[in-house]
């Protein structure tokens, strides 16, 4: 199959995270007819979160392919189609249901290249919603990015800005290896001005979203708006916080983490996942390995409480990182 030139996709002045994800898929579908989208209700329904709304009307049901409730089956089929040379985007409604497909992701997608001695490539992109915050209770509120980030053989991305929502997909599709993209459910309605693709754009580097010199707030995805709000609150108290957006959770940009800590000498790691053995634990270890002598204070972690996320608002709020928790941790670090 041949790749045709992408038609210009003109965005509105003001856009949303959801619209940017959709525009990215539309552009990919226009650019390369090996690309197709499949998942539960991605067609007429427009996806559980409305991300693919309108795509089936434009690209038809072959390329915007509704699947039955068979996560292991259709994720595995996406892997197989990728092995055969297509470029599938597989949407899993949420990370909670991805556990039914974890065997395919871990034992096949992440493993085939190595197991086959380099013969079998799996250029699949798997998108899924993650996170809590909408009172959906334990089985709909997991944040398992850290688990996925522990799997060699896959790339794990966590867009937290409109720009990343818009521009991460193309390089993910160009990657010859499997890429898992986490979309935090609280971000879909985030709005802002549409921004053009920056000159230098990649899916490996962390990005400084706010500069500061007293403490580094290291985070990603759905926690990013909270961390930025915390930095604002800290500024009002005279604490200058730097906000580092990891963007890629695997591989981690260790150099950027170390550089930030070298500037501020203090680190607070914020992740909605469980604390024990989680992403924040890994980042803390990296800091200990890469920036130990730059540290003036112990590393602070603000993580999801180690409970299945409860339904009532007051308990859910208490179970996931909140702005005051981040501010308090930064204050402790600054001492």
């Amino acid at each position, binding site marked *: 199959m041949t790749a045709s030139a992408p038609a210009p996709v003109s965005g509105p002045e003001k856009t949303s995270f959801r619209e940017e994800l959709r525009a990215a898929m539309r552009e990919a579908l226009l650019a390369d007819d090996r690309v197709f989208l499949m998942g539960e209700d991605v067609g*007429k329904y427009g996806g559980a979160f409305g991300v693919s709304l309108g795509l089936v009307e434009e690209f038809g049901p072959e390329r915007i392919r509704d699947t039955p409730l*068979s996560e292991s089956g259709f994720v595995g089929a996406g892997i197989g189609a990728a092995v055969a040379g297509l470029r599938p985007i597989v949407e899993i409604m949420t990370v909670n249901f991805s556990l039914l497909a974890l065997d395919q992701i871990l034992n096949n997608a992440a493993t085939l290249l190595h197991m086959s001695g380099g013969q079998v490539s799996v250029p699949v992109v798997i998108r899924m919603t993650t996170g809590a915050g909408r*009172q959906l*209770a*334990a*089985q*709909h509120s997991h944040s398992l990015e850290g688990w996925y980030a522990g799997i060699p053989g896959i790339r794990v991305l966590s867009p937290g800005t409109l720009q990343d929502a818009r521009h991460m997909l193309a390089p993910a599709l160009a990657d010859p290896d499997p890429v898992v993209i986490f979309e935090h459910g609280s971000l879909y309605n985030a709005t802002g001005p549409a921004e053009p693709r920056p000159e230098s754009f990649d899916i490996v580097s962390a990005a400084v979203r706010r500069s500061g010199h007293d403490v580094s707030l290291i985070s990603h995805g759905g926690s990013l708006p909270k961390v930025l709000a915390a930095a604002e609150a800290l500024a009002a108290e005279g604490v200058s916080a730097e906000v580092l957006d990891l963007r890629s959770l695997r591989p981690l940009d260790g150099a950027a983490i170390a550089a930030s800590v070298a500037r501020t000498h203090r680190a607070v790691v914020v992740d909605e996942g469980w604390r024990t053995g989680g992403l924040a634990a890994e980042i803390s270890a990296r800091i200990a390995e890469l920036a130990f002598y730059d540290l003036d204070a112990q590393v602070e972690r603000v993580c999801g409480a180690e*409970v299945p996320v*409860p*339904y009532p608002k007051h308990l859910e709020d208490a179970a996931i990182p909140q702005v005051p928790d981040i501010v308090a941790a930064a204050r402790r670090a600054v001492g």
Partner: protein
Amino acid sequence: MNRARKQPPEPRADHAPAAGSAAPHRAAAREAPAEPAVSEETKHLLELVDQMLLIRAFEERCVELYSSGTIRGFIHLYIGEEAVAVGVNAALSPDDAVVSTYREHGHALARGVPVDAVMAEMFGKATGCSHGRGGSMHLFDVQRRFYGGNAIVGGGLPIAAGLALADRMTGRSRVTCCFFGDGAVAEGEFHETANLAALWDLPLLLVCENNLYAMGTPLEHEHAQTDLAMRAASYGMPAWAVDGMDAVAVERAARRAVDGILAGNGPHFLEMRTYRFRAHSMYDPDRYRDKAEIERWRERDPIPLLAGRLPAGAADLQEMRERAAAAVDRAVAAAEAAPVEPVEDLYRFVSHEGS
């Protein structure tokens, strides 16, 4: 084992199976025992109407409470499908176990989980049937052998097989009933469970609520073979389709299946042909269904359908409706007044250590 299973009232001639209610693929059921008095039958039907009215009133109130922001999260309404819950429950004894889905308000209420405890759960209050931790999708009442609201499609099926396995291994004569949707039949967990249950002759009643849609996907886009009972039968279990809008037909089918299970004939599968009158959840704009289709199904609303069979003058439907609404009013008032779990107790129930 002391079985307090209620005897079925003999169906009257006009309760003959509706068209589309097929014969079992593998005949295995014993015939129902005969003939209690007609007044008993009327009483029984009144009870079923009462239960359906309570479920309906409960959910209609939930819609209001959701709109006002009192109830949050996902709510999946059962409106239109009530005959399945009350009909199946009528065939179960208090010893039997029930495993359900996220669309389980009706199953819980039919099972006898107190309406106050269910409403308090919707409010996330400490007096809720799951201490407020679960909300709409996770109603539990183990005392009534109601093993929950499961929000992973298909997730309850293997657990139900395990409950049934335990009964079989300990020689207890009782049934585990698992509810799930047509969409769940596409999941591996359904097929693994069906095979295990048939292989091990488990006392498991599989009740598929075929409402023709899995969220926005119609049955024929979900399944290559849409005769779900036939597929279940291929695992070697009796399986048949039932008019799920007709509570009497549902009860009769469930009794027949339960009798077969208790006679040692292993798992049974019932495909309940039903329909949800509302959207999949409160988030769903319901763009994928034809309004005329919804109207056609509404004409077979299970409540008037059953009420219409009562002897003339046997019931004052308006009065029954008001009684159901009053019970829901009391439940709302109690839930409003109830305490929430203190934040300090966040870690309670994670393991027995913390409980």
